[in-house]
């Protein structure tokens, strides 16, 4: 036996009586059945209390049995705030309750509600600033009380994944309307994805009674589900939540551990409607639930929701529920109908025939508890809107089922830009102004009548099919089946009590007076009421509080409910885990063909942008960098510079094109020569540099910085989209690996590997370019000198990178060749005073500021940035990049972005700085005021910890000022 409240079949369509499951709740052992949720299994065992409310620690139990409220939040070992009415039990599952001190049944914090009058609406907000200093006193208390559940910080989210999906029609919700829409669209050949959050298809057909006999819902469900499953092009996704709507029907679906990103040509929302609360004193007690929750307990889980029931209704649903309760052996103490006249329908007649006492034009004034459960309600007569008679009847009961109105599940439609209108005659909101390719059908469209809902779904499916297939099928009309008896909403199901505790928002423990007082405090706009009172901010996101709050605010501010409206319903619709958002994530990494040679040589690899680059070889950075630099200065070293950008510029206009793109002149550049290429943007700011190698009259090979090449290439293409010159551009960065061999012995080593090419100074001068064969590998050789020594850049096909590296190391053994890393390269170039674009320049650096005016061909008629550079030159220059040195070896080495101060004012900053082993002093580059650049000027730099260091401005290059070494 799995609980004293279990009902026999055919109740309990989703549980398997023969599979018993053991689990724990709050330290006690329970048994349930396969298919039970935590809440249903506990209810079967007469455990109705599930949680304590957020603010007042009031006892709470299941309200919707559909995961739509915060009452069922429980703690799973690795998962706080799990919904007990959604999470299915499994053997050994350990569930605990949340938000109490002591025990769930006797929470020591329950006293807080007696202080509720000291915790008025906006209390938290007010405490920020009034009276002064109060926040510090309250903060600790607030923080200890804030938040629910415990995060298991040792938990590692595994196997979360993401997947893209595509369909013609996405149908959200698999109730009668959703199933119909899917069938009709599927039969017309469309690819359909049908999504529902529940385990079983059919929506309300699984638990709602449509007729007095009680068989129609099951028959209809059986028929629609089997038709759906027989249409091949319908993909069914159950236990899946459509968690938002984004532009152009881009829809996230969360199922299990996977987030699906779906692009649908058409979306049909059949999301139904959410039942609403009746608002009266103590309307939050365990034992008070929606009629749909009671029906779910009986039909889905085979659990009797109580023994003695009272039903509060304003529509036929209450009567249908009454018949179900009677079938389940529940005594109905009273059926309280708020309408003046319940009317004569098959359902009301059937209930009357069973002898159920029906009280019309009445409502519940208050509920009373015994322990932590409902014990009785007081029924009074409705005398005016929101007003009840002075006296009434106490009726003992342990179950109160409410059906007083619905709110269409508007969230997704409103995210898509739809608007809500309130209709005073039916007392409900409707959805309009839907964007193209998005439709609503069924209950969410206001069709409470089953036949009308099904017709409405057909209409939507035909419209979607016409749109996808570009067809003209006649669109069937939804006949307006809504008759007065099917108007489900009661206009004002709210009854204030002098002692309060009539909850509008259960998540945040907000009572009627809280909402009303918010408007009295001056917050009249519904968005401000939300932020001031926190109404709708809790886990259920206003599913039950939006409508009553709108009614209360409208009433207090003298506006209509339509004018008042509801707050914005943003995604996600239901809580989603960070793990879903993280999911399968991608961190691109680029490696040169020689990558593993660096790793094998003990390099410390750095990821710079996406590229892996060797920082230095060997663990000790300082000694590694010094010895690598020394090898380059004295003998020969090689560095992998495959990350350098490479762009082929080819065609009759190639030289003209470069002339417009770069600051230098290229028209007369001889074939076989390289020129420095500096790029400025239209504002005259330095943005990239490289060398342009003229391979033939109409072919240049241009290098660009590692981080800049993609941007440079894109910008070149954009310019030529306007200029339309006869030039072809190709980004060949990844097609070439590159190695820089540098040092006085570099020619010796390279010549050995290139027997067919004369590398002598005469045959191959500085800034020369050759095509050659290096160790059998075809390559482009560039004689350039970033590090200030005799050197060559070898650009070779990417897949030969490792072979090239091996050949160079092998061929240079005699000369003591060794690899050097990015750190040594940075030091060596700094010794030469060469700037790195992006490190020594910023978003304001003009060529003049970084002493690059020599690279401007001012007489050219046009290049990008020319006009701005001219305009800048006409104004006084504000700052300049200069070299500095610090001779005191005990002084700390400044770092990038350390400030240059003058009279404690910031006048500049350091961009590069290092201890130079070759020069035996600290050197660096810094921006200083343009009038303080004379060599010998002293500048003050604030280093780490505020330590001031004096430096002296010196000319660059620091090392080999006459550039003799690279000219060898």
């Amino acid at each position, binding site marked *: 036996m799995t609980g004293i409240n279990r009902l026999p079949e055919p109740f309990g369509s989703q549980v398997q009586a023969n599979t018993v499951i053991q689990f724990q709740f709050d330290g006690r052992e329970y048994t349930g059945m396969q298919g039970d949720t935590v809440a249903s299994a506990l209810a079967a065992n007469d455990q109705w209390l599930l949680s304590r409310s957020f603010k007042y620690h009031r006892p709470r139990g299941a309200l919707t049995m559909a995961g739509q409220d915060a009452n069922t939040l429980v703690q799973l070992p690795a998962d706080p705030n799990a919904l007990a009415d959604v999470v299915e039990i499994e053997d050994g599952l350990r569930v605990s309750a949340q938000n109490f001190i002591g025990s769930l049944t006797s929470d020591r914090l329950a006293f807080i509600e007696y202080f509720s009058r000291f915790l008025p609406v906006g209390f938290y907000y007010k405490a920020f600033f009034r009276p002064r200093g109060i926040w510090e006193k309250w903060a600790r208390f607030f923080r200890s009380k804030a938040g629910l559940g415990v995060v298991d910080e040792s938990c590692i989210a595994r196997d979360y994944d993401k997947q893209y999906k595509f369909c013609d029609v996405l149908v959200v919700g698999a109730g009668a309307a959703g199933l119909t829409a899917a069938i009709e669209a599927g039969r017309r050949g469309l690819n359909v994805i049908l999504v529902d959050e529940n385990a079983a298809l059919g929506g309300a057909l699984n638990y709602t009674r449509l007729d007095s006999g009680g068989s129609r819902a099951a028959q209809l469900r059986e028929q629609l589900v089997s038709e759906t499953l027989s249409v091949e092009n319908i993909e069914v996704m159950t236990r899946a939540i459509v968690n938002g709507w984004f532009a152009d029907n881009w829809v996230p679906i969360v199922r299990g551990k996977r987030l699906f990103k779906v692009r649908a040509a058409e979306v049909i929302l059949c999301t139904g409607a959410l039942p609403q609360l009746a608002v009266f004193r103590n309307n939050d007690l365990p034992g008070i639930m929606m009629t749909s929750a009671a029906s779910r307990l009986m039909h889905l889980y085979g659990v009797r929701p109580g023994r003695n029931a009272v039903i509060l209704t304003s529509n036929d649903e209450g009567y249908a529920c009454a018949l179900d309760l009677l079938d389940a052996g529940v005594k109905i103490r009273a059926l309280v109908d708020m309408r003046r006249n319940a009317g004569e329908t098959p359902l009301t007649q059937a209930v009357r025939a069973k002898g159920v006492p029906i009280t019309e034009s009445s409502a519940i004034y208050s509920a009373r508890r015994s322990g932590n459960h409902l014990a009785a309600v007081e029924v009074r007569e409705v005398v005016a809107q929101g007003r009840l008679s002075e006296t009434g009847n106490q009726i003992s009961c342990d179950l109160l089922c409410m059906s007083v109105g619905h709110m269409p599940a508007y969230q997704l439609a409103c995210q898509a830009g739809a608007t809500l209108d309130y209709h005073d005659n039916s007392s409900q909101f409707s959805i309009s102004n839907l964007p193209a390719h998005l439709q609503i059908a069924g209950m969410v469209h206001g069709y409470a009548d089953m036949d009308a809902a099904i017709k409405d779904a057909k209409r939507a499916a035909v419209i979607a099919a016409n749109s996808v297939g570009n067809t003209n099928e006649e669109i069937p009309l939804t006949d307006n089946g809504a008759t007065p008896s099917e108007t489900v909403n009661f206009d004002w199901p709210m009854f204030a009590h002098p002692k309060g505790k009539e909850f509008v928002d259960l998540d945040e423990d907000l009572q009627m007076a809280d909402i009303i007082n918010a408007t009295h405090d001056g917050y009249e706009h519904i968005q401000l009421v939300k932020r001031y009172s926190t109404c709708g901010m809790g886990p259920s996101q206003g599913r039950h509080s939006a409508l009553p709050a709108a009614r209360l605010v409208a009433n207090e501010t003298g506006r209509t409910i339509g004018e008042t409206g509801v707050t914005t319903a943003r995604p996600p619709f239901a809580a989603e885990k960070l793990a879903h958002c993280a999911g399968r994530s991608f961190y691109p990494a680029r490696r040169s063909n020689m990558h593993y040679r660096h790793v094998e040589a003990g390099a410390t690899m750095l990821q710079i942008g996406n590229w892996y680059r060797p920082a230095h070889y060997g663990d000790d950075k300082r000694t590694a960098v010094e010895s690598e630099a020394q090898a380059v200065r004295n003998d020969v070293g090689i560095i992998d510079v495959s990350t350098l950008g490479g762009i082929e510029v080819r065609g009759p206009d190639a030289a*003209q094109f470069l002339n417009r793109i770069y600051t230098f002149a290229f028209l007369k550049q001889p074939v076989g020569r390289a020129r420095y290429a500096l790029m400025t943007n239209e504002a005259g700011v330095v943005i990239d540099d490289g060398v342009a190698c003229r391979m033939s009259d109409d072919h240049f090979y241009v290098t660009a910085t590692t981080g800049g090449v993609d941007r440079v290439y894109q910008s070149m*293409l954009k310019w030529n989209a306007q*200029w339309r010159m006869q030039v072809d551009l190709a980004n060949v960065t990844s097609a070439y690996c590159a190695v820089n061999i540098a040092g006085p012995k570099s020619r010796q080593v390279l010549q050995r590997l290139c027997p067919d090419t004369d590398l002598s100074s005469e045959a191959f001068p500085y800034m020369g370019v050759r095509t050659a064969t290096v160790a059998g590998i075809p390559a482009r050789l560039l004689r350039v000198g970033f590090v200030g020594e005799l050197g060559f850049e070898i650009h070779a096909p990417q897949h030969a990178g490792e072979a090239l590296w091996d050949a160079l190391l092998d061929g240079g053994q005699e000369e003591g060749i060794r690899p050097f890393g990015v750190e040594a390269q940075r030091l060596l170039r700094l010794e030469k005073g060469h700037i790195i674009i992006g490190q020594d320049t910023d978003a304001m650096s003009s060529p003049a500021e970084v002493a690059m005016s020599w690279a401007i061909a001012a007489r050219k*008629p046009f290049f990008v940035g020319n006009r701005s550079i001219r305009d800048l030159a006409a104004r006084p220059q504000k700052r300049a990049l200069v070299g500095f040195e610090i001779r005191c070896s005990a002084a700390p080495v400044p770092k990038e972005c350390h400030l240059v101060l003058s009279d404690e004012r910031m006048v500049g900053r350091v961009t590069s700085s290092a201890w130079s082993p070759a020069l035996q002093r600290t050197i660096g580059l810094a921006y200083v005021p343009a009038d303080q650049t004379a060599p010998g000027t002293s500048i003050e730099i604030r280093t780490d910890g505020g330590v001031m260091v004096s430096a002296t401005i010196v000319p660059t290059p620091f090392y080999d000022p006459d550039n003799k070494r690279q000219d060898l």
Partner: protein
Amino acid sequence: MKLLHCPLNGPRNISEFTYGGEVHAMPDPDACDSSEWAEYVFFDDNRAGVVTEWWCHTATSFWFLADRNTVSDEIMRTYLPAERFSGLAAAPPDGEPSS
């Protein structure tokens, strides 16, 4: 995620594209005054209505133009730059023939 219709690659998620700013005609850099030049370099119209923008399909480095309504965010039309730019005549003169 918004869709953008690339003239070469068809409708794609807008995350596949790089935004290139509003299209502005460059004033003659040799003839215009500094304020006119600064207006061109530093300012966008930021008009409420239909503007023409540069977009680049990143994977193919394909630049095209889009007419977009900045109020509704509706993209009215995408098309090749050739429709608007006829070549060097649209750009400032070099004083040199482009061979």
